[in-house]
């Protein structure tokens, strides 16, 4: 067990370091960052002076070494605009993103698993057909457009919900729905096909032959078997959810890291971009690690003894 954890922690470290490395070199290779620190009309001498002051005239590898040394200690430098600590700014936005992502995840699981189970159980019924059609459409709608539609219907036309901003439960409804829509479609479809697969298995016939009633057969037996592949898919999709959160945050002016990251990209405020990439890669790697643990927990065959 300890071996497994240590191995995965090392893996998480490698993923995060590599992500930082790639983004660092991409930024440096895309142009000299010095002018970004100065007003656009700064004279050449001032730029040159600043360049050596900031160390951008040193060899790239030396800069990289120093950046990594600081980064591991949590120092990504200060924002070029607000001069605040970059990592601090990102961390400050983190709770809002978590709030959105977790509520969307919970909502999509609460809807999609019962829906998928029911759909599989009532295969080829009207209910099933409608559910399948909705999942197909749901996966083809770009989430930002779905967000716009929701704003149009509930904020512009019905005027019952706010179109953006953060703070209260009411503000969360539309962003959560937007972010959850794709996951709901995908998880429902996957739960349905996994359930259908499990219901054909020999051990389900065995349980039937033992006299287990159908509701119990589904709720206790088939569902637990289906959970293993479902957990895997959910874990794989958390990245998509995180990516979707960025877009959703922009659509609804939600004050999370996604919006911060986008603003920093637009302003070429690279310390914040690097800190943001660091945090997102870290979160994602940790989520995958947790998913693996969960996976081992529900599947006795790979339980580490």
């Amino acid at each position, binding site marked *: 067990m300890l071996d497994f954890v240590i191995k995965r922690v090392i893996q998480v470290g*490698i*993923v995060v370091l*590599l*992500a930082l490395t790639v*983004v660092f070199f*991409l*930024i440096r290779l*895309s142009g000299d960052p010095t002018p970004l620190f100065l007003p656009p009309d700064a004279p050449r001498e001032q730029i040159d002076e600043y360049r050596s002051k900031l160390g951008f005239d040193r060899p790239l590898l030396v800069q990289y070494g120093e950046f990594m040394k600081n980064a591991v200690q949590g120092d990504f430098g200060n924002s070029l605009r607000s001069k605040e600590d970059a990592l601090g700014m990102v961390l400050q936005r983190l709770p809002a993103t978590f709030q959105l992502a977790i509520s969307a995840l919970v909502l999509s699981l609460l809807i999609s698993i019962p829906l998928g189970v029911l759909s599989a159980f009532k295969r080829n019924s009207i209910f099933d057909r409608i559910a399948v059609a909705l999942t*197909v*459409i749901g*996966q*083809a*709608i*770009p*989430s*930002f*457009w779905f967000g*716009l*539609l929701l*704003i*149009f219907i509930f*904020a*512009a036309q019905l005027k019952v919900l706010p*179109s953006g901003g953060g703070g209260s439960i009411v503000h969360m409804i539309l962003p959560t729905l937007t972010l959850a829509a794709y996951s709901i479609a995908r998880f429902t*479809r*996957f739960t349905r*096909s*996994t359930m259908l*697969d499990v219901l054909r298995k020999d051990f389900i016939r065995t349980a039937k032959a033992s006299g287990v009633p159908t509701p119990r057969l589904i709720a206790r037996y088939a569902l637990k078997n289906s959970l293993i592949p479902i957990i895997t898919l959910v874990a794989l999709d958390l*990245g*998509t959810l*995180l*990516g*979707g959160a*960025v*877009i959703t945050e*922009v*659509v609804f002016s939600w004050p999370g890291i996604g919006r911060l*990251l*986008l603003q920093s*990209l*637009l302003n*070429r405020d690279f310390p914040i*971009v690097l800190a943001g*990439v660091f945090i*997102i*890669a870290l979160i*994602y*790697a940790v989520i*995958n690690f947790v998913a693996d643990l969960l996976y081992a927990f529900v599947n006795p065959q790979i339980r580490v003894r």
Partner: protein
Amino acid sequence: MTIEIPEQPGSSRPAVTPGKQSKLAFLWSSLLHSWTGMTGFIIILLLLFLSLFGQWIAPFDPMHAEFSKKLLPPMTDGHLLGTDQLGRDILSRMIAGARISVIIGVMTVLIAGTFGTVVGIVSGYFRGWLDVVLMRIVDVQLSFPFILLVLVINAIIGTGLKNIILSLAIGGWVIFARVVRSEVLALREKEFITASVATGVPRIQILFKHILPNLFTPIIILSSLQIATYIIAEASVSFLGFGVQPPNPAWGNMLSEGKDYIFSSWWLITFPGVAIMITALGVNFFGDWLRDTLDPELKGE
């Protein structure tokens, strides 16, 4: 060899190799029996048609702004789908946008597919330390959300049509590398390959004679499904202010510009979104049908 028109180099054309008439006939009859496959096929044909001949079909110049005619609702003054905030015809801009989406989807698949396939073959066929290194890179990249990766890369290397294609390709090649590698690994174990190796056929020759032709089907299937992903990703990135820049009429762009008028002019944010959705549905329908027909074992998720 015919000269291909640059706008549609990835159309289903390569599937037609001489002497495979019967396979074509089989595909066609299977298409006739699948309403989703047929719907997808028709949508794809329509997209290709619009991207090739759109400039002659469009009722107005998609770039022509006429301020006096701004924000006209649909069905007024000959503007079937209305006009935008600068008085440009929305239908014409959407037709022009179809061309951008097709170019981006197809070019990205070509670049990402080629690069990923080469990496996959090198990894799977020659194995060794190179395989270990390449697959580690693939793992790391897959552990970062695709859309964020594309966004960050695009923001750093710059916007525009070429750069968004490049960004999508950088984000997308890993899927091809991984799928092709596992196909190659499976093929290596097949009897006809083992037999060729045993009779002393050179490895390069086996690669070209036996491995490559067998990779064709999985790559075509994956490509068709990936195109939808790329088109949606481009729309998202353009919507966020990167990717294709205004005044170019990419669908994502049009939605981005239209969202400021969401409280007054619903048509600005409605039609381009419908176009993206129908395109994604059509490409997915077609890709699913292709997968179910060419590779029944893969059916389902």
